[in-house]
């Protein structure tokens, strides 16, 4: 066979044209070293797969759910590793989602024309939290039960429709089987479906916004970090890079899951609230805020204000300087404010998690409190 023969055979033509050809991609893609957004996507895939495996055994019943989770940890082959992977990927996704948003903020990449995608991203992040929350309710242990109780009482504090909404969410007047079923439906169907759709929009906007910025740069002839470069990388390079990244994420979660077991508290018991009862770590900051006053202000107004504040950032910041640059000097004030807000959030979590003892009384981390 001659050279010509191999290069014109259909298979090679495919390889040449698709995989080896240099393609023009914007620096937004080629320069992504961390690629936290992609990592989020891989974690979503991992969660879907492990979640599907868990569903084979799990029955969302108040009498059976707890034992199913126990069984997964004891009698099912590799059950505990799969459950651990599901849990640790979820935690990782909260963290990498948060880091992804911080990265976008610190490099000012939420600015026009990407405001809309910032909003989509924010909703995706809230849905990650929603998934984590509903996921917490499914084992039907004490954390599940009391988490649901507190959440439903917060809903009731919404003026006007509060108690009606609470009735719908609980499926009755108290936390019970209907509540668990509803939580389950949200966790395995509604939220994943919405998230997949929003993710598609998110990815599409990345591509679309790149082209819009290219047009901008072409119009005013300014050097913009957003412009598409000369063809520089091949699909093969991108695929190799991303597959390796996926493998790294997978290995990390796998090793972590072999080493550390996901906890399970005592079975849900409406008669006894553990003292202290702590929300899952990503909500313990909210629990701390809840301890300050009326649920209407601390459980509804405060979180809503925080969400709205994040959502409107791109609509207030019309600067054009420092896009795509980490910690650009012209953005010192915004960066300081953002860092302060994040510090407060993390501080609330630390106070709630490590400095609150029985009766939600303040303790320094080195002070001991007896569990009763």
């Amino acid at each position, binding site marked *: 066979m001659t050279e010509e023969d191999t290069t014109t055979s259909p298979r090679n033509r495919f390889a040449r044209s698709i995989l080896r050809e240099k393609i023009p991609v914007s620096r937004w893609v080629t320069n992504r070293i961390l690629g936290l957004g992609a990592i989020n996507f891989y974690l979503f895939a991992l969660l879907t797969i492990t979640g599907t495996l868990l569903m084979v055994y799990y029955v969302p019943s108040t009498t059976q759910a707890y034992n199913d989770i126990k069984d997964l940890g004891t009698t099912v082959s590799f059950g505990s590793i799969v459950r651990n992977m599901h849990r640790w990927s979820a935690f990782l996704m909260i963290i990498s989602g948060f880091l992804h948003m911080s990265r976008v903020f610190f490099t000012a990449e939420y600015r026009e024309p990407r405001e809309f995608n910032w909003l989509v991203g924010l909703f995706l992040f809230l849905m990650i939290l929603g998934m984590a929350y509903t996921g917490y309710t499914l084992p039907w242990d004490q954390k599940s039960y009391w988490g649901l109780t507190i959440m439903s009482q917060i809903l009731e504090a919404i003026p006007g429709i509060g108690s*009606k909404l609470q009735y719908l969410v609980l499926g*009755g007047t*108290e936390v019970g089987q209907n509540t668990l079923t509803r939580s389950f439906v949200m966790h395995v169907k509604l939220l994943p479906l919405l998230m997949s759709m929003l993710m598609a929009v998110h990815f599409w906007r990345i591509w679309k916004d790149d082209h819009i910025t290219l047009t901008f740069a072409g119009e005013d002839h300014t050097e913009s970090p957003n412009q598409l470069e000369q063809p520089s990388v091949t699909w093969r390079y991108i695929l190799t890079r991303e597959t390796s990244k996926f493998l790294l994420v997978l290995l990390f979660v796998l090793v972590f899951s072999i080493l550390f077991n996901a906890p399970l508290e005592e079975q849900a018991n409406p008669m006894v609230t553990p003292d*202290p009862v702590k929300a899952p770590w990503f909500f313990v900051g909210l629990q701390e805020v809840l*301890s300050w006053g*009326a*649920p209407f202000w601390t459980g509804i107004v405060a979180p809503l204000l925080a969400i709205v504040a994040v959502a409107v950032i791109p609509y207030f910041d019309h600067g054009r300087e420092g896009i795509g640059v980490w910690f650009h000097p012209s953005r010192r004030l915004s960066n300081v404010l953002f860092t302060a807000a994040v510090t407060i959030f993390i501080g609330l979590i630390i106070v709630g998690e490590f400095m609150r003892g029985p009766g939600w009384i303040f303790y320094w981390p080195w002070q001991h409190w007896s569990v009763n």
Partner: protein
Amino acid sequence: MFIDQTSRRNFINRLGWGVFLSTIGGIMVASIRLLAPNVLYELPKEFKVGYPKDYPEGVHFIPARRIFVLRENNRFRAVSAVCTHLGCTMRWSEQDLAWKCPCHGSVFNEKGGVIKGPATRPLPWYDISVSLDGQLLVDLNKDVSPDHSVVVNV
């Protein structure tokens, strides 16, 4: 003739939209209504809590129904064990003569009044009476004042 045709087309157009919107709207309303159950398999709101003679002096937690039954001499009273802040089950502290909530630290005095937030509303007291068979009968549907009690000579 021409006018007739446009107005007919207009009419059909509107009819189409009307049918479309009312169908979708109706289905949505029905779907939301479906989420609110009409029959609840929850515990009854009126129930018996045993014989007065089985209660010594003091505050007694009835776990299954999340209430406290109090006895002072021959007077019996019933109060909710559910924190009015966000619904956690409270514990009675004999030391401080107060109910304490483990979730966000609310404290209630012997009368059910808030000593320490974040709770704002006092604990509800429930109607208590003696049923025909001599057992104490609590009715969660009836809120009463903290002094409401039933006197039983035991």
